[in-house]
């Protein structure tokens, strides 16, 4: 019975944590404070990091100098090590060197201290995000080191994005300074268990017989998915078949998501927030002109699109292009659109770092032969004293237009960029593509460049869509709006612009917005806010109380209009007086057509990227003892037990003699 009691006590204790644990460990389970590198799979590979089934632990060692690097490569009494590195040492060679060493068990990267004058860092490839049917031999991104696509199996890499955690780590590392002589060393244990492995085909096989309570979900990975949004300046005309260039649409697109080696740090300032800001600026001007009745619904429909999931082989745009080819877009009963019905496709990618206000228009052959198209851009560039240079590599640039051109090789379109044949962005696809390196505080020309581009494009777009507008009307974009968009997304998302366009129940957030697409079943903050911004700018507004604004943003509604209530610039929570927005802006699920076609093998031309499901990642910091201490304790316990056993046996056997 005593044994039963013992067994019950033990089994209870094993699964709980004690009060003493609070004095042993610093436990950090919040993956927003210290985002790890996680695992993704595609048709052929697994990429990213995982610790495997068991946590990885080691003595904490801070690397500051080159001799520190040499130290951790050698065995020692306290190896293996978990190393803390700072940004000057954050380079592909160093990371791979550390990963290859058997004495290093994991890496922590301090991403808080960003010194000036950092060299380039781009974990993307040199020819990033090419679709399978494009030529893959470009050097658009010469700084690319492909670190994103490396498989760090059983090797965790965490970023440290919180000053408290960093201070604790640095104190811990400091106490390890004279490491050779210590009996107790400060150690770190990293847990980041990823369930997916091999490739997407293997891990999407559902294992229904695994008990749900032992895994976080019933599958080991899920295809990346997000929410794109699109909207029309004027509502699409019912009973219309948009199938030729006469009545075709003008589709203007930007990429909504971003990526980084640490997914929760995907700020994507130049790529592609710059384009999002310009596109929203254009939308705001056109919306204003519409509301002033300066323009009418006489020309080609202007359609704005923000595609989500683009970083992972163009998930959002491929989905829309696929649906158009199947006649499933848009899903309004009396409206049809085919690829031939896209008169012009204008994409924007990386527009904030031009030299001398010169932008490049990477066009398709059809567009190069379209004199009206070219003259529209030339006239607006002359008007605004900037330069648009036409290049003919539009079909071979990875962009939101890529899959549209796959379905219609004659598509007339162009991608507007600030680069010719190599990116101006030295931090493409990195968390360092942020406010600081975009130059929000250091580049005096940033906003003026974006503003003048925005104005020029507005004029070009009005021209190519044959919408007549009075020359005298000012089509300048709002500089303050551009500044606010950049600030809200890149610096602090708790800002008046976001509140203005959102309902009162907007979830609170702070700091910069990470725009990694992830697996969104409900809309992320990015998709939601961009939808709200677009709708607020191009929709109709009415100042009402919230209960008089009937909310309808359902994707299945047959009506073309969507309504929602936003706070407006002067929201008062007691009167509930805000702005009722009635717009033709829609959410659109961004999920790879591979999911629908259920083909995740290497013969699928669509994105096969899937994200692994995982156990809660965590960092534990604690003191660990030298191995000899553990052996000594075991010897002591063994000896004590053995001695007592022997003595008690002797005394029991000789009891009659001893006790008389």
């Amino acid at each position, binding site marked *: 019975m005593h044994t039963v009691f013992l067994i019950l*006590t033990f089994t209870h204790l094993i699964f709980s944590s004690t009060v003493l644990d609070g004095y042993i460990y610093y436990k950090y389970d919040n993956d927003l404070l210290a985002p790890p590198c996680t695992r993704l799979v595609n048709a052929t590979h697994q990429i990213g990091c995982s610790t495997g089934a068991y946590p990885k632990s080691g003595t904490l060692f801070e690397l500051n100098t080159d001799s520190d690097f040499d130290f951790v490569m050698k065995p020692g009494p306290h190896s293996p090590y978990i190393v803390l590195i700072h940004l000057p040492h954050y380079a592909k060679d160093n990371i791979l060197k550390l990963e290859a060493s058997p004495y290093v068990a994991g890496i922590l990267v301090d991403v808080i201290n960003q010194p000036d004058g950092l060299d380039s860092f781009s974990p993307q490839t040199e020819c990033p995000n090419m679709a399978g049917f494009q030529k893959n031999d470009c050097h658009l991104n010469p700084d690319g080191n492909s670190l994103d696509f490396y498989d760090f199996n059983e090797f965790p890499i965490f970023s440290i994005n919180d000053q408290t955690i960093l201070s604790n780590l640095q104190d811990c590392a400091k106490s390890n300074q004279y490491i050779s002589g210590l009996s107790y060393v400060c150690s770190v244990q990293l847990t980041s268990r990823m369930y997916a492995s091999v490739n997407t085909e293997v891990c999407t096989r559902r294992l229904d017989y695994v008990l749900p309570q032992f895994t976080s979900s019933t599958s080991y990975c899920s295809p990346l998915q997000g929410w794109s949004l699109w909207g029309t300046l004027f509502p699409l005309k019912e009973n219309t078949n948009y199938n030729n260039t006469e009545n075709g649409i003008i589709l203007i697109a930007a990429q909504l998501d971003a990526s980084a080696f640490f997914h929760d740090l995907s700020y994507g300032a130049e790529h592609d927030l710059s384009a999002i800001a310009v596109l929203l600026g254009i939308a705001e001007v056109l919306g204003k002109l519409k509301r002033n009745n300066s323009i009418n619904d006489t020309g080609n429909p202007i359609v704005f699109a923000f595609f989500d999931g683009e970083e992972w082989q163009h998930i959002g745009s491929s989905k829309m292009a696929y649906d158009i080819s199947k006649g499933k877009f848009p899903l309004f009963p009396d409206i049809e659109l085919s690829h031939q019905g896209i008169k012009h496709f204008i994409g924007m990618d990386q527009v904030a770092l031009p030299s001398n206000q010169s932008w490049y228009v990477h066009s398709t052959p059809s567009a190069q032969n379209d004199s009206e198209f070219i003259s529209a851009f030339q006239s607006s560039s002359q008007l605004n004293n900037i330069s648009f240079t036409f290049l003919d590599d539009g079909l071979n640039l990875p962009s939101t237009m890529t899959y549209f051109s796959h379905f219609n090789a004659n598509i007339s379109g162009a991608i507007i960029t600030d680069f010719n044949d190599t990116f101006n962005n030295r931090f493409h696809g990195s968390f360092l593509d942020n406010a600081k390196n975009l130059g929000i505080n250091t580049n005096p020309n940033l906003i003026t460049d974006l503003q003048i581009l925005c104005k020029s494009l507005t004029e070009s777009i009005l021209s190519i869509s044959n919408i007549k507008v009075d020359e005298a009307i000012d089509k300048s974009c709002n500089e303050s709006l551009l500044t606010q968009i950049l600030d809200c997304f890149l610096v602090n998302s708790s800002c008046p612009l976001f509140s203005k366009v959102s309902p009162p129940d907007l979830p609170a957030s702070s700091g910069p917005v990470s725009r990694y697409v992830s697996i969104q079943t409900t809309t992320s903050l990015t998709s939601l806010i961009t939808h709200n911004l677009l709708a607020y700018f191009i929709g109709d507004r009415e100042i009402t109380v919230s209960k008089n604004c009937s909310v309808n943003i359902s994707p299945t509604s047959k009506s073309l209009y969507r309504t929602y209530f936003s706070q407006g610039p002067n929201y008062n929570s007691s009167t509930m007086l805000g702005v009722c927005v009635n717009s033709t802006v829609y959410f659109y699920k961004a999920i790879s057509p591979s999911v629908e076609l259920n083909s995740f093998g290497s013969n699928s031309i669509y994105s096969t990227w899937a994200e692994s499901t995982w156990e809660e990642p965590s960092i534990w910091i604690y003191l660990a003892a030298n191995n000899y201490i553990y052996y000594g304790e075991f010897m002591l316990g063994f000896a004590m037990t053995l001695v007592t056993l022997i003595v008690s046996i002797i005394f029991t056997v*000789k009891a009659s003699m001893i006790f008389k």
Partner: protein
Amino acid sequence: MTVFSCVSYALIAYGPATALILVTQYRYAEQVLIMLVCGFIWLISLFLSSLIWTAVPPLRNIPAFTLPFSVILQELARCITFIITKKLSNKFSNPDTRYRHQLAYSAGAGFGVASGLFMFLNVLKSSLGPGVVGLRGSWSYPQFILTSALLTCAFTLLHIPWSVILFDACYRRKWFLLFITPISHLILSSLTLLNSSITVWPSLLAAYVLLLVLTVLAFKTAGGNFINTTKICSKKLPRDSPSIQ
């Protein structure tokens, strides 16, 4: 070294007591019964001292407040076990198990097991993880779990001579000897208060010295013969003598 260190600490804390009890108590079921009953009575004393701890919230962080009450309650419980074991033993049929020192031994063992389990099992669970105490908390030091284990072993084993001495004093009504147990218990427990603030050595040394001294004392009380003890190596095991303990 997670499970490994847990096993080491379990061996240190519970190994000697487990070995002792396995060897000496297996013989009669009545001995195990006495152990269980006395363990439960110890548990009641723990419950009552926890009520005192709960009663004054601001003093909950100061072990020095609850400690004397806890010791007094345990000793009162020990006296109660004396009464109960006497009553229970009258019902035993086997004369061997009615031998009073054997009863005292089992009672003390019961107390020791219960007190050892509650003292250390929680800490043992913490030793399953990769870390040792010492990083956080101004009072913490790396040898915390080892010291806990050693003290648990000492206390578990100490309850046996404490019970033997107390039961003997109660039986022979030698009231002067009665106070050896509570006073030495109180002194030892108070010395452990120094562990986190000053140093660990007073309580550890005192515990094992006290263990040695009281074992010898209890041995003498139970009628042990020192001279014969020294001769056990030279004499052979007597074959037909009854195994009275």
